[in-house]
């Protein structure tokens, strides 16, 4: 059975085989991974029959406070009653939905529809806010469209110069490194910007190691040098962009020595970087979480987009700017209505035309659709408060581990009247729930995923879920059906719009069928930015996936964007001046060290899955705090000794790991673990004003011996 890996946005092609109930994996030649798989992919089937797998709904026993197995009937009744009670007492917006970037397109779409049509709440958002939302916002602002990579991944191998900003694919998506290897073998130059000497930075020809939180100053200085050295593509700037003058004047104030003092990156290295980008025939700039997870993440990405535009890269074949999306369906998950302000097809929920179109597809009056909600952290932070929702349904996310200032979020979740979590393992968030619904895994369901290139892929079911388990779509369909039968009294009988093209609401069976849901998604996205109208499962099967936008059944798809025009009204890309500003929390006498978070190869996101896989647990058994040996010496800490990391918001504890590859003024920890080793206990919940992205990548801490 040909399918794709369940984990990251690279979505490596793989083949699943079933023998005597045991499922094994073989890598598949696919244009992205070209036969490569990391150990996360190799070991993914282990969770299908894991002893901790949930195979029955769980209900919290009010008497003992414990979660106990229950029937689906009982669980769904409890949810329906709970939701109705909350909405009757506190209004429709008192129920919220929290999704995930790992859900299939069908599920992400169904979740948004469920929130807007079945619950009629404005409160839906998802963990993608914690992922690439800053790059998405910057891309929309500059290009009028946000597709992580506006070109196929294979372009990386043919670039002359490749700049990775805050990206560590050697750990986060190892098979992508095959393209870096090809790039090197062709004589290309790799430059990495990262405060740590990561596995990726070690492969670079040039590594810039800035102080965390100073990437934007580096970007502006690179453009300053591009201007003074004559690398700016004047024709391109004149014919394909607007707004350069304001950017030129802003970066005039970012002479390299100024950025050097702020970032610690030597001027000579800045100059070499600008030269390598500015003189290359093909150059690509990629950002990832290191640049994006800041309270100035959108502006930081914009700084690098400005640089790319000034050099004339976007839309030039073989060159460009892109974002390395993180989660498995981080791309598709942000296109079809999981976001607080969005409707399917990357439409804006406050756009009247968009509302009318989607309402027609959904068979509801447009004025019944709720307005925009609030971004993820704001939503989580309001839960259980007087102004916030009192009931929450979580699908495919574990915010107790993955949200910033996690102890506070955990408290908010505990304050809810009703917390429902759908998952196939008892995640830290599920453990707090009133109702836990056991869901199917990737090898047990059909659907589509959209990878980091904007290539829509097919996920295929190898076998049905085990007894007692339902798919997310089945759960949403069942809840929708029950909620329809329990319409609150204040809700007027729905009048079907006369111009409706949809024949009423789908039946429960239809709503649970991913193929039917995808057909509706295609209609809902038609005419939108992320137009899937011409994409069918058959068409995906016939090719190695289909790149959106693809509006027509028999028309071409779009592997390369922006070659002629950008997706703005006038077809021109937008420069936008951006200024460096300090982190939301800078170091001080009490908290003298910068703290930054990230990932390790053998774990994925909040670790709910990968921490339970034996081989991965052996490879990365526990959290750690990476310290420079000089800092460790000053703290009196030796390698392996437990240390406490404290911020104004909380603390966590993990063994010290000494490494000369980190700056002596900065400490790092991976965020994959919960409990006492939860790195997000200390992270800052300051968010970007545009994207709502929390500042995971920098806060001020103190480190002590435990």
């Amino acid at each position, binding site marked *: 059975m040909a399918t794709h890996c369940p984990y990251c946005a690279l979505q490596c092609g793989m083949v699943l085989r079933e023998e005597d109930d045991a499922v094994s994996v073989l*890598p598949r030649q696919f244009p992205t991974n070209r*036969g*490569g*798989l*990391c*150990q996360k992919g*190799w070991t993914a089937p282990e969770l299908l029959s894991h002893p901790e797998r949930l195979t029955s709904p769980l209900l919290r026993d009010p008497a003992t406070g414990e979660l106990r197995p229950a029937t689906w009937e009982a669980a769904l009744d409890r949810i329906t009653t709970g939701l109705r009670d909350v909405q009757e007492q506190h209004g429709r917006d008192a129920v919220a939905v929290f999704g995930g970037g790992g859900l299939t397109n069908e599920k992400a779409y169904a979740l948004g529809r469920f929130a807007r049509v079945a619950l009629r709440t404005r409160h839906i958002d998802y963990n993608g806010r914690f992922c690439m939302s800053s790059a998405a916002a910057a891309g929309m602002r500059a290009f009028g469209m946000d597709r992580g990579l506006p070109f196929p991944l294979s372009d990386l191998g043919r670039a002359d110069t490749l700049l990775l900003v805050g990206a560590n694919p*050697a750990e986060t998506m*190892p*098979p*992508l*490194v*095959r393209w870096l*290897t090809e790039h090197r073998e062709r004589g290309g130059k790799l430059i990495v910007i990262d405060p740590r*000497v990561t*596995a990726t930075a070690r*492969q670079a020809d040039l590594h810039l*190691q800035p*102080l965390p939180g100073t990437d934007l100053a580096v970007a502006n200085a690179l453009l300053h040098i591009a*201007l*003074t*050295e*004559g690398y700016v593509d004047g024709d391109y700037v004149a014919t394909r962009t607007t707004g350069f003058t*304001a950017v*030129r*004047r*802003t970066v*005039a*104030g970012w*002479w*390299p*020595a*100024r950025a*050097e*003092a702020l*970032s*610690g*990156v*030597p*001027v*000579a*290295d800045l100059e070499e970087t600008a030269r390598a980008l500015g003189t290359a025939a093909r150059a690509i700039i990629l950002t990832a979480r290191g640049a994006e997870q800041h309270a100035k993440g959108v502006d930081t990405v914009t700084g690098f987009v400005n640089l790319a535009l000034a050099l004339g890269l976007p839309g030039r074949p073989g060159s460009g700017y892109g974002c390395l999306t993180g989660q498995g369906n981080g791309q598709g998950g942000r296109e079809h209505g999981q976001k607080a302000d969005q409707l399917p097809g990357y439409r804006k929920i406050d756009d009247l035309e968009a509302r009318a179109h989607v309402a027609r597809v959904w068979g509801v009056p447009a004025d019944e659709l709720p307005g925009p909600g609030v971004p993820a952290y704001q939503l989580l932070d309001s839960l259980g408060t007087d102004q916030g929702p009192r009931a929450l349904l979580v699908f495919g996310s574990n915010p107790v581990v993955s949200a910033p200032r996690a102890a506070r979020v955990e408290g908010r979740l505990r304050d809810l009247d009703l917390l429902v979590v759908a998952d196939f393992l008892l995640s830290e968030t599920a453990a707090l729930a009133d109702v836990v619904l056991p869901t199917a895994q990737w090898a047990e369901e059909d659907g589509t995923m959209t990878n980091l290139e904007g290539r829509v892929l097919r996920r295929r079911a190898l076998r049905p879920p085990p007894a007692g388990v339902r798919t997310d779509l089945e759960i949403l369909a069942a809840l929708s059906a029950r909620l329809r039968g329990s319409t609150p009294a204040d809700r007027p009988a729905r009048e079907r719009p006369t111009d409706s093209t949809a024949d009423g609401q789908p039946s429960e069976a239809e709503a649970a069928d991913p193929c039917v849901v995808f057909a509706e998604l295609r209609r809902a996205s038609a005419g939108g930015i992320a137009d899937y109208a011409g994409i069918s499962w058959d068409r995906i099967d016939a090719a190695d996936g289909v790149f959106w936008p693809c509006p027509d059944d028999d028309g071409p798809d779009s592997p390369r964007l922006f070659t002629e025009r950008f997706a703005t009204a006038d077809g021109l890309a937008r420069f936008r*001046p951006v200024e460096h500003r300090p982190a939301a929390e800078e170091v001080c006498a009490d908290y003298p060290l910068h703290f930054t978070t990230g990932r390790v*190869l*053998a774990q994925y996101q909040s670790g709910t899955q990968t921490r339970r896989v034996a*081989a991965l647990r*052996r*490879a990365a058994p526990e959290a750690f705090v990476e310290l420079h*040996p*000089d800092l460790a*010496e*000053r703290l009196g800490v030796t390698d392996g000794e437990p240390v406490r990391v404290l911020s104004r918001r909380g603390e966590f504890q993990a063994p010290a790991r000494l*490494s*000369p*590859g980190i*700056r*002596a*003024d900065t400490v790092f920890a991976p965020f994959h673990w919960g409990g006492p080793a939860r790195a997000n206990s200390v992270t800052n919940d300051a968010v970007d004003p545009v994207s709502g992205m929390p500042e995971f990548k920098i806060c001020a801490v103190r480190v002590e011996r435990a």
Partner: protein
Amino acid sequence: MTGHSERVVVVGNGMAGARVAAELHARGEDLKVTVLGAEPHPAYNRIMLSTLLTGKIGESDVELAEVAGRGVDLRTGVTVSAIDRATGQVRTDDGDRIPYDHLVLATGSRAVVPALPGLDPEHLPERVIPFRTLDDCRRILALAGTARRALVLGGGLLGLEAARGLALRGLDVGVVHRVPYLMDRQLDPAAGAMLAGTLAALGVTTHVAVEPTAVRADAAGVRLELSDGRSLEADLLVLACGVRPDTALATAAGLAVERGVLVDDRLRTSDRRISAIGDCAQHDGTLTGLVAPAWAQARVVAQLVTGQDPQARYRPRPVVTRLKAAGIDLAAMGDPTGGPGEELTFADPARGTYARLRIHDERLAAAILLGDNPSVGTVIQLFDRGHPVPTDRRALLLGRAVGGAVAAPAASPALMPDAATVCQCNTVSKGALVRCWRDGARTVDAVVAATRAGTGCGSCRDAVAGIVDWLSRTDPVEVGR
């Protein structure tokens, strides 16, 4: 001044004046800010003028972002003729009177014209030009187009920047400096001498330890006579003999002035309704003459005038002098030639690399770095932030990675410990590969299929092949002993 000032007038639209206007604009939306700039140009980055001299960029490239528009009235080409403190007004040379609740003086400084026969500061010869303003730059460029030789009087930072810029245009440039070594305020003799060597390679000749005695200039050229009896001829002479704070307005208004306009930690002059920042201000006995302190001062003034932070105070920070241009890389901070603590030196005259650092109390007290010093960014940050220096001092000379135990791949598989991870993506150790081979896998493909080594990023394929090759050449019985 801790109160809210509604009408703020800024005299000067240079690096300091434009900055304070921007800082005020960012903080106080209801402020009415008037900026009066004597130069007719929009605000520009003075630091980029030497790049403008090279011809690589045009005038529009040195323009700075403006905050003109809502709440900010920017008037260029307007000279302030007087401050009327009694009525709270400034008078302009076009007869206008502009009332202020708070006045910020950012009048900058003027180029010093040395007292030499042949140089009348009010009527400089056509081919003798100071290097200070955009207009100066235009005049230099107008002559440089047809010039072959240029002289620069003054071997400080500004003079060397001008010299380098002209040399890059292909001119034959000579620098005349009174002190025995270049940039004597920042460097020591050894660094100064090495810098002279670096400049020579870029086409700049230096004449040190020599006084100019007279300037003879006419329409055809300029001749500089020297105390050692020589005279140097050129098509133009650039004066880079330092700057003097422009305090005329403040003096005439009766404010306390020494070398600069005296200011306290709030940047207040002797009149609390008037602040002074940048080159024209003298704080704690010190004139700054650099952008970084001027911008720090602009921020403090904005915080105070808008009432955003009544506790804001200007705290001078140690300054870093940086000269970075094609072929020259120089950073100087503090005075490393004396004082307590350890001294760290490195010199490679053949490559023009020099480093002299002073460490006191585990902090970097001073440094001169010339040439290719990969540690320069780290050194500047350590100095600026006062963070502890690396335990292994060599990291200060050679870059951050020095002294660390970065694991290098073993030269031969035989030397690699069994526990060493060969494949990171799939966590496969050398021992696992050996076991696999002993279990019967005899080819790279077979070992890869059994262990998954090399199936992730693929980077270790060569290492895996090397181990298999080594195993196949070694007696199986020996393996693993």
